[in-house]
């Protein structure tokens, strides 16, 4: 017999699979445009499908402002909150919400500025290939900030810049207490919608400094935006981090 419990299990499977396969949810602006009927049919189909895998986000558009909110706040809480709003509007202290979002310093370095390049030069990590004129550079890249990402995953903050006249050893940084059986890296071309996979590397090794080095040759790539995706592999494949790269012609 097909019970509700089995339907729930299938639903969870669908949600997990869809999120992995299709990536991040649509932006608020995309959903607003969808609900107004102003998207093209292919775009509408894409946004609708994505949204169906994120019921909590869909719910934002289905849950109305309640007619009554009695008992939600105590009188003291209401007075405190209204005073905080007025204080902020007069240039007062930030809210607890903003304070709670302040991350430890090391995360601020990694996240607040978006993707950061740290090029290791000199005797630490740069060496030149004498047989070819293309230099091989080592770069460290960090997971991009989540804000500012538009519907196609293009970042609103500055991505890591790389050049067509060099090859790279990319060191994506990702710290996690969990250790996976193995790691996988995928390179996507963001010029297409949906992004096109260019390559997939299995068996990527996690280094003691929480990097997952991989070599990237830019020789045959067109200038534009690319995304490197890090996955952890155990019984299932879990997406861990995304890094956006801007390839510039030199």
């Amino acid at each position: 017999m097909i019970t509700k419990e089995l339907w729930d299990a299938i639903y969870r499977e669908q949600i997990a699979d869809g999120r992995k396969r299709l990536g991040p949810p649509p932006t608020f602006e995309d959903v607003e445009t969808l609900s107004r009927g102003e998207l093209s049919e292919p775009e509408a189909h894409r946004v609708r499908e994505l949204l169906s895998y994120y019921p909590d986000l869909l719910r934002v558009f289905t849950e109305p402002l309640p007619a009554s909110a009695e008992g939600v706040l105590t009188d003291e809480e209401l007075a405190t909150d209204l005073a905080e709003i007025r204080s902020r509007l007069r240039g007062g202290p930030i809210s607890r919400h903003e304070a709670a979002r302040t991350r430890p310093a090391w995360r601020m370095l990694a996240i607040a500025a978006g993707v950061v390049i740290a090029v290791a030069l000199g005797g630490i990590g740069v060496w030149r290939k004498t047989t070819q004129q293309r230099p091989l550079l080592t770069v460290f890249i960090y997971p991009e900030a989540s804000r500012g990402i538009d519907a196609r995953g293009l970042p609103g903050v500055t991505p890591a810049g790389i050049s067509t006249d060099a090859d790279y050893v990319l060191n994506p940084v990702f710290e996690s207490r969990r250790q996976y059986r193995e790691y996988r890296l995928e390179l996507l071309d963001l010029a297409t919608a949906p992004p096109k996979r260019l390559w997939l590397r299995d068996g990527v090794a996690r280094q003691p400094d929480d990097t997952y080095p991989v070599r990237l040759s830019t020789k045959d790539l067109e200038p534009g935006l690319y995304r490197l995706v890090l996955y952890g592999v155990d019984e299932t494949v879990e997406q861990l981090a995304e890094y956006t790269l801007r390839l510039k012609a030199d």
Partner: protein
Amino acid sequence: MRDDREELYEELLRYYPAVVSQLRKLGFDHEDARDLAQEVFCRVYEHMDAYRAESKLVYLQTVTRRLAYNELRDRHAAKRQGIHVDTNEVVDLQDGRDEAADQRLERHESLQRLRVAVSQLPPNEREAIRLQLSELPLEEIAKAIGITVSALKSRLHTARKRLRDVLGETEGLGGPDDH
């Protein structure tokens, strides 16, 4: 701030508890809902020029939805980056050790039949089933995703018929069967 805007803003502030309540229903805990509601009203104040007096509630609703949506979306991004996983959302895999072996086998076989049946549905019908399983009101879903209620119910009806033909029943699916 001009007096008329001040008055308008004070009127909107009366909806503060309602905004907190709405945010609670969207899954935010009490403290986060209060913090986010404060952010809503600060944004409303900052953009009062964009506001048309006759649609003050719509405007408030839009700002609330935008902030709530972006916050939830950020939390999904944080999960993808492995920064945070809400333990409430960890899939609760049923421990079948208390079941008899034949019951476990039957459940496994039923799950597999259901999995295959759903995978064989056309994409828009599979999507309709997913939306049904979200347990959100169909009329509101249809409005949010820009299709008519009748179109959504029609897809559901066709999907359920297909599933019944394959599985023999759709007992546990719930929701309306006819449109």
